[in-house]
């Protein structure tokens, strides 16, 4: 009994060591096919644990149809949807290919992906470029405007950003996130500070390598005009940090939380690559004009990887405004979200601290035992997609991870450890 507890403690210490030792650096933007050699024609990576077309929610179906047209696999959205129903596409989770994607999380061969390298462990993680707000593919949008923007990201913006990054040797992300936390970002709903810092870091090199000033201006305006530009970088960073934590025998630390709009799934270090899933929950939040909760799709996206590393809902105390989506929206309530997450995590990040909480570190290393014992589910800050395909983002809010995932994981873990 004590022997098992001791083994778990030692394994979790190793997990924490790997989390805190991570050294994520944004190094490149390359076509997905180059980053992920296993990607092939008609293969579509999506957010969350595995899901097939028959169980996909509306916005994910909308995104699938849109990306199929974008890749030239279907002449139009209707044909694309029909092909999907007939099994023409190979659906796989991003997480199985070192990748993550926000909301619907579409990743296909020709899309540009940002590359974050964890220099402490040598692994890389990938994420597509954030498209902006409103009608965008990650929220299920798929009309001509959406597809045109994706083409520009592929042909113009992506290559320019990649070139700039390669010329400068990469941008270390850990110090950048530490500064963002002092500027009111929590890296899920709030990325204003980090987006500004990223723009500051990128623009000299982008200007130096620009061929066309108008194109450069458009690229810089695209970053500066999108408060969430940094989100996808933070996600690739989270994936790059957490992947080396996978597969530590006897560790109860969560290595991924992810949702596909139908199921919520978690992976735990000590139970390897098994997904423990439960139905996703509905966020509580605020809606854009013209929309209500009746329009909302349940929780979706790989973006919960930022909560897995201690940001997002876990760092709510750094971004009091985000707490306004629920409750009274006071700064003290925001701080309490972070304090509550400290109840289910093993340590505080020594480098990512929150000034308003007397420089407490963000709560890191979610322990499935603590989640089950306290009944406190991880808090997740999230965007909200329309439930129908093709419409896009309708709001934003806060949601909980389903406790059932953690109970299942703990049961499986106990079985593996030989505890009845």
């Amino acid at each position, binding site marked *: 009994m004590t022997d098992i507890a001791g083994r778990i403690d030692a394994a979790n210490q190793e997990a924490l060591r790997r989390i805190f030792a991570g050294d994520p650096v944004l190094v490149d933007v390359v076509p997905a096919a180059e980053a992920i050699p296993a990607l092939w024609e008609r293969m579509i990576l999506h957010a969350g644990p595995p899901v097939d077309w028959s169980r996909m929610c509306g916005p994910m179906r909308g995104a699938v149809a849109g990306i199929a047209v974008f890749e030239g696999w279907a002449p139009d959205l209707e044909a694309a949807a029909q092909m999907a129903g007939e099994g023409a596409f190979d659906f796989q989770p991003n997480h199985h290919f070192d990748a993550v994607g926000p909301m619907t999380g579409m990743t296909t061969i020709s899309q540009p992906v940002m590359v974050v390298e964890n220099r402490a462990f040598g692994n890389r993680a990938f994420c597509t470029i954030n498209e902006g*707000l409103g009608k965008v593919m990650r929220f299920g949008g798929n009309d001509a405007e959406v597809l045109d923007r994706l083409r520009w990201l592929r042909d113009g913006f992506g290559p320019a950003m990649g070139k700039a990054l390669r010329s400068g040797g990469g941008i270390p992300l850990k110090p950048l996130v530490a500064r963002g936390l002092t500027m009111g970002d929590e890296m899920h709903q709030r990325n204003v500070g980090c987006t500004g810092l990223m723009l500051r870091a990128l623009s000299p090199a982008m200007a130096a390598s620009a061929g066309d000033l108008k194109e450069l201006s458009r690229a810089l305006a695209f970053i500066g005009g999108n408060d969430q530009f940094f989100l996808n970088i933070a996600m690739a960073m989270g994936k790059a940090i957490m992947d080396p934590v996978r597969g530590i025998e006897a560790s109860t630390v969560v290595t991924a939380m992810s949702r596909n709009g139908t199921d919520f799934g978690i992976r735990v270090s000590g139970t390897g690559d098994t997904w423990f899933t439960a139905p996703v929950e509905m966020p509580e939040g*605020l809606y854009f*004009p013209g929309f209500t909760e009746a329009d909302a799709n349940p929780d979706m996206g790989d973006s919960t990887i930022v909560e897995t590393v201690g940001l997002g809902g876990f760092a709510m105390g750094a971004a009091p*405004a985000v707490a*306004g989506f629920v409750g*009274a*929206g006071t700064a003290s309530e925001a701080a309490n979200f972070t304090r509550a997450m*400290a*109840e289910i995590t093993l340590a505080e990040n020594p480098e990512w601290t929150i000034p308003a909480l007397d420089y407490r570190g963000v709560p890191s290393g979610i322990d499935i035992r603590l989640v089950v014992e*306290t009944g406190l589910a991880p808090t997740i800050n999230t965007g909200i997609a329309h439930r129908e395909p093709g419409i896009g983002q309708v709001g934003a809010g806060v949601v909980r991870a389903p406790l059932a995932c953690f109970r299942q994981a703990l049961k499986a873990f106990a079985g593996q450890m030989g505890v009845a």
Partner: protein
Amino acid sequence: MSAVILNRVRKGLYIDSVALMRFSRSIAGLDGVEEAALMMGTPANLGILKDAGLLDGTGEGASGGDLVVAIRASDAAQAEAALVEAERLLDQPRGSRGEGAVWRPRSLRAAVAQMPDASLALISVPGDFAVAEARKAIRRGLHAMIFSDNVPLAEEVALKREATELGRLVMGPDCGTAIINGVPLAFANRLPQGSVGIIGASGTGIQEVSCLIARLGGGISHAIGVGGRDLGDVVGGISTLAALDMLARDKLTGHVVMISKPPSPEVTARVLARAGAIGKPVTVCFIGAAPMAMPANAEQVFTLKDAALKAVGIGEETTPRKPDIPAIAGRRGIRGLFSGGTLCAEAQAVLLAGRLQVTSNAPIPGALVVGAAEDGHLLLDLGDDAYTRGRPHPMIDPEVRGGPVREAMKDPALAVLLADVVIGHGAHPDPAGGLARAVTGARGRRAPLVIASVTGSDADPQIRSAQVSTLEEAGILVAPSNADAAAWARDAVGS
């Protein structure tokens, strides 16, 4: 009738988007408003407003640094009213809204992280979970006070054995009273610190003895509750023995008082043997027990009052205050209605010592159980499980005693109604008021004499002297202690 769209642009006013979404929600909920939004006038936001049918020529002219208020309402008056309300929200001071949210840890682990020098955990959770929480506490190096009851006996034993190995103290289960380092826990009183340490299996017994010691000029080092079953044969006094050892080591403690029902001979022998070895004077009060052999450093007493007197070094009261007890012609019955179980037991001991016949729902040795005899003075413990099932304890809700009091006040055969009033943390804010109202409301021409005592101190939230005045104003005789109240009742029917 067609809808009216009304926009207003506030130049150069920036407000956070989430705050604006909250405002939007409240404006959209106003009468006659079909849709409303407050947004910064960025191109993307203007697009959203346009798609939502909210944008007019005014809003279209906004730039990214301007705030747009956009309303669509059923008529112009409604739109204008909504606009006024929106501007009011924008201009109201957004200062502090009171105290802010308070943080309370949800687990022992988080509580200990917040208070690293904590040494004790008070556990009050449903009985099925109490032992699990207590285990976590003792394994973290904390002593545990378990307020919860309904803990399986076997689990209590296992827990206390583990605590002994870890050198930790488990108070309870069902421990309602303790004072540790001057801090009253659960049902306890605010008293000066001093040299008397108390170990008690009963809450009200500890309260009465500790309050009397304070009133006699003494003070309490620690009052340690061990739970009602600790001195039973199954547990065998594990926590009592641990508490004796701790008080033996404690520098502040110069005298130890032990309070309990009479344990079995085997447990008595074990506990007295340990008490005899602590090197400090001990006063033993096993209420209802016969005189027994004591170790050299120990002395046996038979009431809580005598325990307090012994503890402060007064062997016997020199000039006990005696009231003028009015003559009660032709009536002989005493009815005791107690909220404290040990106070009921002490009153029985006092009456039995006066050779009166006593009946009780919680009889001590020598008293009869209710139903066994018709005559005999009836002393009831209203905190007994039979009375509190599905109802609050009479210490929390004095109205539980209201019915029996009113009934007694109308009983022509009764000479004396005897009652206790227990105050302090956890108790009702005004128990004397409750008793006084029940007594005065039901007092007839041939009502019994009412005698009571107040267990507590002037430092308690209810203030003992104020509680005494409330009783006296209702014509209730207030004795300085529960034992005195019982003695006065005994004298009244004996006279």
